[in-house]
């Protein structure tokens, strides 16, 4: 599988869209080459026989970390909106979500 992994500029465009990043056509080509190269290097994880091996998502063997259902102090609206790129009426202002009709 590793020798056949190959990523095209179209695939890169799809990834860039999923990740909400505008890329120019030149960038798509450049990144495709680099990602292809990196994928070849990392694809060797597939060489390891690991069918019966459990996946590890957390390094320390802990369970049941939780907190009591009590209210604790948070941030004021002023604090949380202070860093906002745009705010109006004590809310975060964001560009329109759909294209106009």
């Amino acid at each position: 599988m590793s020798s056949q992994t190959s990523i095209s500029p179209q695939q890169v465009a799809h990834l860039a869209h999923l990740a909400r990043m505008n890329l120019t056509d030149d960038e798509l080509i450049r990144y495709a080459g680099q990602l292809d190269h990196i994928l070849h290097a990392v694809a060797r994880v597939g060489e390891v026989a690991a069918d019966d091996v459990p996946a590890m998502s957390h390094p320390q063997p802990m369970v049941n970390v939780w907190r009591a259902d009590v209210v604790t102090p948070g941030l004021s609206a002023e604090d949380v909106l202070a860093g906002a790129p745009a705010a109006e009426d004590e809310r975060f202002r964001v560009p329109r979500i759909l294209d106009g009709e």
Partner: protein
Amino acid sequence: MSTIDRTNLTRVSAAGLAAAIAAGDVTALEVTNEHLARIDEVDPAIHAFLHIDYDGARAQAAAVDAKLAAGQTLGPLAGVPVALKDVFTQVGIPTTAGSRVLEGWRPPYDSGVVDRLRAADCVILGKTNMDEFAMGSSTEHSGYGPTRNPWDLERIPGGSGGGSAAAVAAFEAPLGVGTDTGGSIRQPGAVTGTVGVKPTYGGVSRYGLIALASSLDQAGPVARTVMDAALLHAALGGHDARDSTSIAAPVPDVVAAARRGDVRGMKIGLVRQLMGEGYQAGVSQRFDEAVDILRELGADVVEVSCPNFEYALAAYYLILPSEASSNLARFDGMRFGLRVGDDGDANVEQVMSATRAAGFGDEVKRRIMLGTYALSSGYYDAYYGQAQKVRTLIANDFAAAFEQVDVLLSPTAPTTAFKFGEKLEDPVAMYLNDIATIPVNLAGNCAMSVPIGLAPEDGLPVGLQIMAPSMADDRLYNVGAAVENALVDKWGHHLIEEAPAL
């Protein structure tokens, strides 16, 4: 302890400064001002700092002096200046994670690390430079320009925490706090001749640590001596209820271990897969010499095999980008940070995409796309899923090794500090810098890099990596101190004293 050189406060260790301040030989404010002056003097050349908090630092120092004047007994690091990697939130202080997407952002809340530093009465001098979002091994990927290695200004200081290591190596601060996801504290430590430690995962709070890879990131100490690192480690470590991955157990007694430095009867393992081919000759030579020192000090040294370490780099460069691609999604221009393209006409998708394209550098974009790919439907099992299994195998290799030995050793990095631009063309060549440090992040246990000499061929620092099981961080300090003491005995000084004057 009036033996410190008051005319050269910046050359004194953290332990020395703390003792002098506590004894009243010098004030915290004097110490802070000396370090601020040093920063003004050398940082234009080094560029370790992204933000210097003159007023805040002086106010913190003055507060320490006031407490002491009032007769209070303070902790073992009271009044000591610290440089903070710009990945930790600090109220009102610009926090960028080395990225343009957070340019000018002043957090409304403090990180757990800042809370601990304040509780220890340390003085935070400012925020240090780093590869953008901690992705890199040279600090060349910072959105704000690189940091230079104090040993040779044409060379990288390592990464991603090049700023904190360079600051400490250039005597701009006796202590730094960094983060280590794949070697970002240890590798800069190795190439700058300083001490860097990655504590056991969960040992230090990640609350307020701008996340790169949540299951790999860990904050840790940067210092010039093993004892200084131990004092800082003890101050930083411990449970934080705001971090679910934080360990609810006391920090192992790292200070006592650093004081001990006794390896008689210890079993030490050399990891076959982390030496030999691929390591610069001078690095291997100094490594072998350090191992000999430990033998002479009474340790039993054997070779151990950790066969799955061959796959650590591959697994890491799948797991990290996957988690990072998700962690970095929030940088979309909606709630904080940079926003680009909001002209009243563009829709939200367009603004998000323009913002992220403008705000993120190349390496960040590459890793986000790599991670997006690895998690995609159809690819998950082969890439991310498989990498998580390899992770288990690596943890198993460590477990098996630690049944035979108390600590494992390897060179910290395969080469000494390379020149700017040398590894920028090929991302994978850059990734190889982490080949020895990555396994520990995957398994979650702890490791330290301590300086062991200069490579003969280039006169640049080499680091020894010491690895120990989870929660056995004290073993790092015991072995580290033993090596350091032996070398200081041999040379008459710490290696860092040989760094060229700036």
